């Protein structure tokens, strides 16, 4: 196991490095016109524009620039944003935004885990009966209707019904509820439908039939055997989802005016804020790789039958 973890860590570091390096180079291949607006062309001379490009690190030897960037990074300096929030430390920007996405993301993940798993269990238990039909109806609606439509309708309807402000406000806790619930709707459906599927699979296994014939109670059988086995394939994704809550939700955050991380990467790319793009790429790719890694390990812990290294012969 230790050897495996060591090997995977090296691999992970290498993949993050490659992603970051490629993105860094691609950003330098972009045409430089995009850094200037029409007014800039009127107000800045060619020399001024060149100086600006040098200042923001858009021109120059990319390998050297990459070296400088990595050097700073190891000293804990994420650099400054140039376009979106000129002269603000990227660390400050992240420190300001991440807590919102993380808080909403975590609470909604817990909420969707609880509700999703409960719903999945209910559907599996009542397979073919009304709980299953009801659940399937919910899943189909949530997954098939474009989320913007039902999320917006929900926002209008619920805030209107209870006379609460439509937008999120830090000072008013009642405005925290609806975004959290909205954020959970689709993942509840996701957990429910997969858990139902894995549980139905498990329930048809011989060991379940055997246990039942031995007179084991339904509840015990569920808890001890079916649920645990059905959770294994789902568990693999928990760490990844947990970590990527940091990236926020573009739709929910813009719908409720939450100043979180959702859309920051897209905006940074559109506005060609290279330094910010690079940091976000590192952050997201590192979290992504770490999440998959942790998922694999979690699976091993949950299911002793799974091994990550080849079993030695003899």
């Amino acid at each position: 196991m230790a050897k495996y973890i060591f090997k995977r860590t090296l691999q992970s570091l290498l993949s993050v490095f490659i992603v970051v390096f490629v993105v860094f180079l691609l950003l330098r291949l972009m045409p430089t016109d995009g850094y200037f607006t029409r007014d800039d062309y009127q107000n800045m001379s060619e020399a001024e524009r060149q100086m600006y490009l040098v200042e923001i690190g858009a021109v120059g030897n990319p390998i050297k620039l990459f070296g400088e960037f990595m050097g700073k990074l190891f000293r804990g300096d994420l650099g400054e944003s140039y376009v979106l929030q000129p002269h603000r430390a990227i660390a400050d920007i992240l420190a300001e935004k991440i807590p919102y996405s993380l808080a909403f993301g975590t609470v909604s993940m817990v909420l969707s885990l609880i509700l999703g798993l409960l719903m999945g269990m209910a559907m599996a238990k009542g397979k073919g009966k009304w709980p299953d039909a009801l659940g399937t109806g919910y899943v189909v609606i949530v997954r098939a209707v474009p989320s913007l439509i039902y999320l917006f309708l929900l926002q209008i309807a619920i805030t209107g019904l209870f006379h609460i402000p439509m937008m999120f406000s830090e000072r008013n806790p009642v405005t925290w509820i609806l975004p959290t619930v909205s954020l959970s709707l689709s993942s509840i459906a996701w957990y429910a439908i997969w858990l139902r599927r894995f549980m139905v699979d498990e329930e048809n296994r011989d060991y379940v039939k055997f246990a039942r014939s031995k007179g084991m109670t339904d509840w015990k059988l569920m808890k001890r055997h079916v649920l645990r086995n059905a959770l294994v394939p789902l568990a693999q994704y928990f760490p990844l989802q947990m970590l990527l809550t940091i990236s926020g939700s573009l739709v929910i955050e813009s719908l409720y005016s939450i100043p979180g991380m959702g859309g920051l990467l897209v905006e940074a790319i559109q506005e060609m804020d290279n330094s910010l793009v690079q940091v976000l790429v590192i952050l997201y790719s590192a979290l992504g790789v770490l999440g998959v890694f942790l998922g694999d390990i979690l699976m091993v812990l949950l299911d002793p039958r799974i091994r990550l290294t080849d079993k030695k012969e003899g």
Partner: protein
Amino acid sequence: MKKSIFRAVCLALVLLLTVAALTGCGASSVSTTEYLGTYSTDVTSLIPFYLPDTTGKKVISNVIDGLIETDRFGSFVPSLAESWEHNADYSVWTFHLRKDAKWYDSKGKEVAPVTAQDFVDGMRFVADHKKTKSDMSIIKSVIVGLEDYYDTLVDFDDPNLAASKKPEGPRETIEATFDDTVGVKALDDYTVEYTLTAPVPYFESFLVTEIFLPNHKEFSDACGTKFGTAPDQLLYCGAYILQSWQRNKEFVLVKNDNYYDADKVSVKKIVLQKITDGAATVEMFKRGELTGTSLTGDQVEYYKQDAEWGKYVTLRDKSSVNYWFFMNFESPNTEFNTFAQNENFRLALYHALDRVTIAQLYNPYDTEEMLTNVICPEDVCYDENGVDYTDYAPLKEIKERGAGTYDPALAKEYFDKALAEVTDGNGNINGAQAGEVKMGRTFSFQTDGKLPLQLVYIHGSSSDEVSMAQIIKMNLEEVFGSENVEIVLSQFTGDKYNDVIAPGNFDLGYDNYSFKYADPLSQLGRLVTDGAVNDGHYSLPEFDDLVAQGSEKLVVSERYALFAQAEALLINGGYIIPWESGGGTYGMTREVPFTAPRGGFGLSRFKYKGMQLSEEPISAEQYDQLEQEFYAELNRKNAG
């Protein structure tokens, strides 16, 4: 088991909803001292001297005052300057500051008095390209010594400039020359004087722009590169203080009770929230969570039928931004290039474009009211007798053409004349070659050098833009006949200026142009040969001459007479086809119209000083009445 799960789920939901219901009870009443506004794109930085977007202008105009401002009629009135005068030829302007204006920090604590030196330091800040980008190009050549000082600093910092060509350093020495060489002087603590390179009778209109704001140098130096990045990185001398600024969320401005003009400020708090969704703002307005909302074309149609809200839909005043069509006189498309040089063809286009139908896309009602036939905006520039610039001959006649420029029969007549002049009678276009025309990296098409003339119209990727392009295609092909003209639609996704206009990858297009100061030169000066917004690259020496002559006249009516002739040349020669005015959007609001400062340029028009709010939304009827009263008063003022 089954039951318990459901009970749990139901219980959780009921609990959530009860909590929500209990805490959310009681709809708040609409305040008349709190302005609740929105914005859609975030401000990048609040350096007062560089405000590329409206939100930044809204914030800074309310927290930092300039020497003068415009009142609700758009006339220049004292702000930080109590009085001012100029010499006989308008080249030296002296401003006398009021003595009770102070700088305050973000907590409202008094820091220092506002002095004449702050205005000198404001210009010093703008004149250093390392401090900030700015809208320098409009004043660089206006103030004595400014251009030289600015360029010397740029040359000094330019790493690509040969050492022999570099000005002598160190940088501090060059910076020190500012006080002696640039025409901004503090004569004493409360008198500031601007010396101009040439007579500028309309100099006042520059003073309401951000470039002329004061700067407390000691404070901005201490902030360094963090200046303008947070509320505590700014000092305030305006009606409001920026209390908080949460990026991507909201600005909160509170009234400064110690402000010298505090009794004119009735809105005590301004909250600007970032909301990107137009449907949400309408709903929030209806619930009293916002002071006003704008409406899209579809929403207007919906709400006009609404029994409760229909009466509140109002059309706001036009802005000074004008839209016009331009064509490419250096098109890589040889077929079009031949036609573009022909005046009869350009006039054919002028009379063929059905501007009303096109504008209906954006404004389904009152469309004709939004059209404009001129380049400089109406109701912005007045001469010494109160006569509007656009009422000067021959512009007045052009202005009054209204929607009548659309005349398919006349267009066809001009087109037939053009055909006779630029084709050989067998459908071959003179000077046009067969072959591939490349426009940009991705767009190319084949021409055969024969009729039909292939004309490339460029448009953006939004649904409105695409519809507009299709309307124009149908419109022109119908008027001229598809055997004569084929409109080729070319869609761009990137930046219109960088990808399309600057490299000349188009035949016909349109854009909007803001008006920067109160003189027709603001627009005409940029439309001369090689001018900054001469997007089609035409050259019309007669026009250039008239503009040059006009800009030398000091008596405003004499200037305007020459400018009006120049502008008429562009329009009557079909070089530019004016389309519609900006602004004029539909909306619903609780803001009493015509109470806030007005102006076609600069910062004053974004001020909330003087603005009155109403508890009830303003009905269209009320709006019309207030509008009539306002214009009657304005005309009386201008005449008197």
